[in-house]
């Protein structure tokens, strides 16, 4: 492999369109890796918080205490967010209505809103990974096709068709495809992995919401019995 066929040399000598494609792919690759790292950290932290909250919730702590325990400026996340929004709605509705049905409906609605927000938060930017994963091979292929078109144009201009007249063009064209795959492969792998983690977390939140809802329902049933 001589120096003129080294990858940096090929990139530097590529035609403008191919170079633009390469820059685009490099940007896509960097962006996808940023998302991969950011999401990995965020999801692992969310899982840890979910675990910690689960332990606290089932440790037999009083729900009012648990609700008041968190500081005011703290923005709750995950199951805690679901719990807080549901419990807040419960507390607000309890003095206003005697109907346990209406209270449970309100709680469920607020929990659904909180769940939907959590889902958005978990899946944030994962679409970027999906886009990079599916589009960058095509972008790279476009660069390759363009480069090979150039190679054939140069071939038509040269009197003699040797491999040495075509080889640099094709090599630099193939670099574009390689970069497309380089960007796409991690994006595909991590998109699948991160979306699996996110959906599992969301399933955990939904389970918690149901459990919390059943707890509130039990409390309301007891109270209505006492009232009756």
């Amino acid at each position: 492999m001589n120096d003129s066929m080294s990858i940096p040399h090929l990139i530097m000598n590529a035609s403008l369109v191919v170079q633009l494609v390469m820059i685009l792919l490099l940007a896509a690759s960097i962006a996808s890796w940023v998302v991969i790292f950011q999401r990995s950290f965020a999801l692992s932290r969310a899982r840890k918080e979910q675990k910690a909250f689960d332990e606290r919730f089932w440790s037999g702590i009083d729900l009012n205490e648990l609700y008041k325990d968190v500081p005011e400026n703290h923005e709750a996340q995950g199951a805690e967010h679901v719990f807080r929004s549901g419990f807040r709605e419960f507390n607000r509705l309890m003095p206003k209505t005697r109907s346990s049905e209406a209270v449970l409906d309100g709680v469920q609605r607020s929990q659904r809103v909180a769940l939907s927000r959590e889902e958005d938060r978990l899946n944030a930017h994962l679409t970027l990974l999906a886009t990079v994963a599916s589009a960058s091979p095509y972008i790279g292929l476009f660069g390759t096709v363009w480069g090979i078109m150039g190679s054939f144009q140069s071939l038509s201009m040269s009197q003699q068709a040797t491999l040495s007249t075509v080889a640099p063009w094709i090599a630099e064209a193939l670099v574009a495809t390689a970069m497309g795959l380089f960007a796409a492969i991690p994006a595909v792998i991590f998109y699948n992995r991160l979306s699996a983690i996110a959906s599992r977390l969301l399933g955990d939140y939904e389970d918690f919401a149901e459990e919390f809802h059943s707890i509130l329902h039990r409390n309301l049933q007891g109270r209505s019995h006492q009232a009756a």
Partner: protein
Amino acid sequence: MAKRTRRSGYGLPVILAIGVHVVALLMTILRLPESEPEPSSSSVVQATLVSDVTATDQAQYAQASRARNAQRQAEEEAQRQAEADAAAAQEAAAEAEAQQQAAAEQAQAEAEREAAAQQAQAEAERRQQAADQAAAERQQAETERQQQAQAREQAEAARQQQAEAREQAEAQAAEQKRQEEAAEEQRQEEAAEKQRQEEAAEKQRQAEAAEKKRQEEAAKAAAAAAAEDALADSIANEQERIAGAEQANQASNNFINLVKRAVEDRWHPPAADGLMAQVRVRLGPSGELLAATITRSSGNPAFDRSATQAVEAAAPFRELRQLDAGLQRKFRDFNLKFTPGDVQ
């Protein structure tokens, strides 16, 4: 709980993502220097300069033609002996006459000066001397021709031919007479003066040398135009000397080396061993390429084209302008010889 309130930022992920790409790039770059030393700088290609003027070409061609002539001479001698018996003896006689006419001036002068010595020697060494053999053969051929002609002429009109035959016979007789007279003279001289015998021996030796030379030239003349070859030889010898001097000159000249290196760098020869192509390169006053033509083909068109393309790619040779005016004129037309070196 308060520790975890911080949302995951983008600072660290950005740094990590860029780090990943830098590592990937380094992996592609750092692997190259390791693999590079193996091929190192084994220059596959050697473009050798032949000459800056066409004189060397002519010299080379002359050498080649001389070698060819030597071969042809041997062949022709054998052929001529065979032909002598054949009916083509008329042509042989004509050729012999033409050869006498076409022989170089010095050869003629020597031949005339030493005619007596040759004839004396011819009697003693007739078998060894091919020219005398030719003379004997000519005589035989002529007699044969006479017979044939007589046979033919008897059918038509015998008298004129007989008269001619008689004239020829008379001419032969006169020649023989002359030879005998010369021999008698020499014998008399030998008897009279021993010193002159020694001189005659020397003359004989010289005559032998001259005779050999004449044989060679005669053979060439029989093969082709001997006079032209002799002329070309003399020219080639001169030009060889000139070209030798000029090649010594240009060995120290770095312009040609520059050209050579530039062409070598851009030469991508097809995989083929043992080929040789010669390209004549003509340059303009500022070093631009006017023409690169194949003067001697390697027989492989792809190889030839690669050679001309290498020259075209290496042009223009701007260094030409830095030379003196005289040198510039000299280097505006030169030949490049392309021979692939030890491939791989």
